[in-house]
């Protein structure tokens, strides 16, 4: 720290020195400094290089609008963060920051050559070039991409934790400056549940360091009065104050997102296991926006040099941080507010060279005070140029002509090491417009302010974000508006005595003239993106008319500061050039977030294990203990196969498949959806939702059903069992369970409310253990000796109520494998025990647990479809050769009408068939295409392979496929063309194994 650049400040802790590193060099600052104030106190202005021309750039502001001083924080590959504003980084021990977009260093940057090429790089130059030779764009692009970009992304995963929290309040106050504090106090006093947010570490905004004697509230300094008010806020239990919390987005229905920073200001070692950022999701009945205003720069030739800062920022650095931005400062302004900076600097003993004011005069109190001190003021002058490559060293000024369109007289040279600029104020209306609010243009102060009549929700804007720029207006109007908004009669702020200087003379010039032609100057608008007033004029010349076009063509306002400093000037220059009224021109859209928001904060803790739900069956632990590999089916973890002794998947599946047919297999089928259907119209309901008829199904019997979409395509399938006269249980596919229930509820509630039917999901209540194979009967008999398993008593497609060791179960004799098979449905809390019992009972029969892969193989041997694998939403039951399941007698069912459209009745649709390969060992790839004529151009694809396996029971490869007119092509030889070979296949029946269904009763 340079002692010459530090003065006393009560707002930061000047007793605690903190070391930090910038570009590898160690510096010191105080606790309470930002990186920017600490660098300035070390006389470091040059912090970065600009995006396009790599011009040296310095710290320009003290807040979130900073376009230049954006740095890479931390050298740790997992913690490094690009593009952080030095003005927002609170200094901490261990801070390492580096300049971005420069090589080899910010002091000597090779890319600086672009500055000399700048005449050839006007706005949109890349649209006009890099087109030859035709194939070379990607080669040009490689260089463009590497010279673009700012900082670097981390290269390792982020170890930090991010959190979310919903909050519901009566009143949300955004911004803890003087208006926010007033509004929050009124709200809290009215006993409303209130939240007050501010993005800084303390409340108070700019007024908290306003010790200027020209401003008084009840005869106190503004600073003193406000700190008392803030202290008083703490007593309200119904007021929650969140600092370091930045409002990110204001969505419809007063839904707002705010990011709270919890650890970035802590010493690196104090952050462990703490949440780094929390995203607040706030639903507020009413919102008070008190986000203030930011100062505008002035647009003149070479206005971008290090050492040029917004005048109000110079004031904050001296008053709040106790840092002098220079030792010989000039001020360039269009308004009175810069004179407050002058007084602060003067009070702190900083030399002020001169003030350059574009106005003819100013008759306000504060200007008079400055004049009394004897500081030279150049009235009606403008800066026409600045000098100094890495730090400003002088300004050149000239007198403005009457209209302000040109300069006259002699050039005056003033040396300085810092220039404060002030072009007036821009109310922060971003949140208002984000929420859908419309703006109106205030011609007196040349600013857009909220149009109160077009407020989209319960909200008000108060203070300078509402266009009230002077202390008395701010306080009085905030008080009045808040009272009205919250329905308050009298307020403690009604009778405040306020004293302040009033601005009387106003003048605004969007683009200040120079003695040189515009073409030869560099008046920057968007400092980060290096777009100048020239670029805007070029865009207009080329016919880009809309502000959005100009923005996109010149990239003005598209930097990380989102154009907070540049948008108004761009608009002003367009309006001036085209002779349009700014109000009619409108603004560009302010898109959320207000300031950039980490992906981490948006995602919260929903990363890693919490990325998505994981659903487990009641037997999951058993599967895990017994070495199952799992398949993700929807959100479920299903056993895929159970490898033994380092078996490959193929080996395991072959073994499981064989065991299931040779002796016994056992499958956890709990994930299938189960819907309990009750009501006097239950049968009628099933008639309407399935393609087949249900009324005649006997109690105790099961039936397979196919469900269509209204457009006639197969949607879901499963077995439904009639438990009683008016009682069924329906099963659905695993993946379709939720959708089927929603769809059925929809029909029931909206189309058929007259039906007496109730649907209740019991998917998780019952676990399902499926035991199949020739020995399944013996195993079930051991487990449930009381149950008569004879075919007469308990035939295929029927069910019995029973119990195992006193616990009720439902046993269905249904089969998805073609084997003699039972499904035991038992309450989930007992399921693991029953599974273990089954394993024990089946031990002597080598009962083999099998997973989804074997299940798929076994059913494919039998030609049973899997919806979603063999169907894809484009197949009708007829296409599946399942005409038998479509009732011709029923008047209607979901999707019936669609089966009779001109396209769905075509005979040459794709139809489900079986395929066998010429080489029985050749297993087709699922998804492979099928053709008849390999030489036809373009090649004609007849269909594709939907399921394919090597069948251990048939000892050959089998497949299911859909093929154009497949129904009539049995025996036809076709080809499956692969990348490196063509496979010969023959169309067969879809049933490969046990065509007579003998095994069902074996």
């Amino acid at each position, binding site marked *: 720290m340079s002692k010459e650049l530090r003065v006393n400040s009560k707002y930061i802790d000047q007793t605690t020195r903190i070391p930090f590193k910038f570009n590898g060099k160690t510096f010191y600052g105080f606790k309470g400094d930002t990186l920017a104030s600490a660098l300035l106190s070390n006389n470091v202005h040059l912090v970065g290089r600009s995006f396009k021309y790599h011009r040296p750039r310095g710290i320009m502001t003290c807040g979130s609008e900073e376009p230049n001083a954006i740095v890479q924080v931390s050298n740790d590959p997992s913690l490094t963060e690009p593009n952080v504003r030095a003005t927002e980084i609170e200094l901490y021990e261990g801070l390492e920051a580096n300049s971005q977009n420069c090589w080899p260093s910010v002091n000597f940057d090779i890319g600086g050559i672009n500055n000399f090429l700048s005449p050839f790089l006007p706005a949109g130059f890349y649209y006009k070039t890099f087109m030859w030779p035709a194939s070379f764009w990607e080669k040009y692009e490689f260089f463009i991409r590497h010279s673009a970009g700012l900082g670097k992304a981390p290269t390792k995963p982020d170890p930090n934790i991010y959190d979310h929290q919903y909050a519901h309040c009566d009143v949300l106050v955004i911004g803890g400056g003087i208006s926010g504090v007033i509004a929050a106090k009124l709200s809290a006093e009215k006993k409303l549940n209130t939240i007050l947010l501010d993005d800084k570490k303390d409340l108070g905004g700019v007024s908290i360091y306003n010790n200027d004697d020209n401003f008084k509230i009840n005869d106190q300094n503004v600073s003193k009065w406000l700190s008392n008010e803030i202290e008083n806020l703490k007593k309200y239990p119904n007021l929650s104050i969140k600092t370091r919390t930045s409002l990110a987005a204001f969505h419809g*229905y007063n*839904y707002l997102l705010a990011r709270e920073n919890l650890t970035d200001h802590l010493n690196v070692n104090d952050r462990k296991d703490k949440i780094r950022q929390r995203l607040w999701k706030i639903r507020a009945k009413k919102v008070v926006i008190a986000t203030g205003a930011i100062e505008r720069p002035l647009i003149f030739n070479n206005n971008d040099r290090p050492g040029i800062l917004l005048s109000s920022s110079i004031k904050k650095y001296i008053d709040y941080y106790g840092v002098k931005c220079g030792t010989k400062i000039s001020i360039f302004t269009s308004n009175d507010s810069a004179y407050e900076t002058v007084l602060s600097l003067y009070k702190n003993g900083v030399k002020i060279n001169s003030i350059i004011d574009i106005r003819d005069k100013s008759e306000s109190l504060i200007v008079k005070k400055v004049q009394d001190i004897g500081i030279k003021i150049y009235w009606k002058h403008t800066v026409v140029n600045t000098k100094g490559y890495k730090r400003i060293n002088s300004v050149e000024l000239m007198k403005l002509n009457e209209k302000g369109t040109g300069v006259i007289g002699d050039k005056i040279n003033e040396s300085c090491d810092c220039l404060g600029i002030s072009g007036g104020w821009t109310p922060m209306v971003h949140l208002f417009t984000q929420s859908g609010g419309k703006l109106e243009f205030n011609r007196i102060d040349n600013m857009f302010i909220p149009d109160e009549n077009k407020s989209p929700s319960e909200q008000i804007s108060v203070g300078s974000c509402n266009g009230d720029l002077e202390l008395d207006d701010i306080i009085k109007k905030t008080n009045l508006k808040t009272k009205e908004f919250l329905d308050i009669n009298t307020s403690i702020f009604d009778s405040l005595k306020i004293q302040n200087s009033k601005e009387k003379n106003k003048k605004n010039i969007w683009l200040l003239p120079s003695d040189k032609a515009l073409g030869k100057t560099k008046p920057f608008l968007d400092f980060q993106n290096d777009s100048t007033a020239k670029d805007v004029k070029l865009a207009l010349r080329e016919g880009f008319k809309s502000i959005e076009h100009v923005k996109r063509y010149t990239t003005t306002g598209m930097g990380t500061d989102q154009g907070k400093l540049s948008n108004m000037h761009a608009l002003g220059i367009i309006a001036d050039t085209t002779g349009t009224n700014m109000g009619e021109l409108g603004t560009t859209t302010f898109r959320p977030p207000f300031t950039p928001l980490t992906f981490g904060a948006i995602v919260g803790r929903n990363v890693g294990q919490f990325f998505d739900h994981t659903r487990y069956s009641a037997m999951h632990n058993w599967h895990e203990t017994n070495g199952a590999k799992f398949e993700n089916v929807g959100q479920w973890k299903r056993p895929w196969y159970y490898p033994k002794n380092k078996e490959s998947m193929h080996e395991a599946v072959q073994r499981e498949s064989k065991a299931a047919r040779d002796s016994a297999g056992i499958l956890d089928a709990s994930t299938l959806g189960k819907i309990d259907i009750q009501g006097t119209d239950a049968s009628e309901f099933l008639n309407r939702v399935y393609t087949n008829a249900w009324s005649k199904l006997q109690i105790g019997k099961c039936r397979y059903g196919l469900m269509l979409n209204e*457009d006639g395509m197969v949607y879901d399938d499963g077995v439904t069992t009639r438990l009683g006269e008016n009682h069924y249980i329906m099963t659905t596919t695993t993946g379709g369970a939720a959708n089927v229930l929603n769809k059925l509820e929809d029909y029931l*509630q*909206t*189309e058929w*409310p007259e039906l007496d039917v109730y649907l209740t999901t019991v998917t998780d209540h019952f676990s399902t253990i499926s035991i199949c194979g020739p020995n399944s009967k013996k195993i079930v008999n051991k487990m449930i000796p009381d149950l008569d398993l004879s075919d007469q008593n308990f035939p295929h497609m029927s069910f019995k109520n029973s119990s195992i060791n006193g616990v009720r179960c439902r046993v269905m004799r249904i089969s998805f494998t073609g084997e003699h098979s039972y499904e035991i449905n038992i309450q989930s809390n007992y399921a693991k025990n029953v599974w273990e019992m089954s394993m024990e009972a089946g031990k002597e029969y080598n009962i083999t647990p099998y997973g989804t892969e074997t299940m798929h193989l076994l059913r494919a041997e039998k030609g049973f479809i899997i919806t979603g694998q063999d169907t894809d939403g484009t197949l009708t039951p007829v296409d599946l050769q399942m005409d038998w399941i479509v009732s011709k007698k029923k008047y*209607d069912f979901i999707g019936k009408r*669609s089966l009779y459209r001109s396209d769905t009745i075509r005979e040459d649709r794709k139809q489900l068939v079986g395929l066998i390969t010429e080489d029985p060992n050749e297993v087709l790839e699922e998804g492979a295409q099928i053709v008849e004529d390999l030489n036809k151009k373009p090649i004609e694809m007849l269909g594709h392979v939907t399921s394919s396996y090597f069948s251990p029971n048939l000892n050959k490869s089998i497949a299911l496929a859909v093929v154009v007119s497949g129904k009539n092509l049995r025996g036809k030889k076709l080809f499956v063309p692969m990348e490196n070979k063509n496979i010969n296949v023959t169309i067969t029946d879809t049933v490969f194994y046990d065509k007579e269904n003998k095994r069902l009763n074996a």
Partner: protein
Amino acid sequence: MFVINCPFCGERDQSEFSSGGEAHIIRPKQPTELSDDQWAEYLFMRKNIKGVQFERWNHAHGCRKWFNMIRDTSNDKIHAIYKMGEKPPIV
């Protein structure tokens, strides 16, 4: 995220609901008697109004009840909510 006033549960966050598209498209009682054109009209054709639209919503993660909503699709403002089977209120 809207706040939706479920006619059964009261005001809830939009994330508890699912949208069911245009309301008052009645499933034809006798589909077999419709021409392909008429059936397509029911199946696919939508008003897709910019402005005040009648639509169906379901409190999917709450009471599971379907209801109707009158909403302005040009600004997402909800004008009214009414139960299935009820006549739409005049807005």
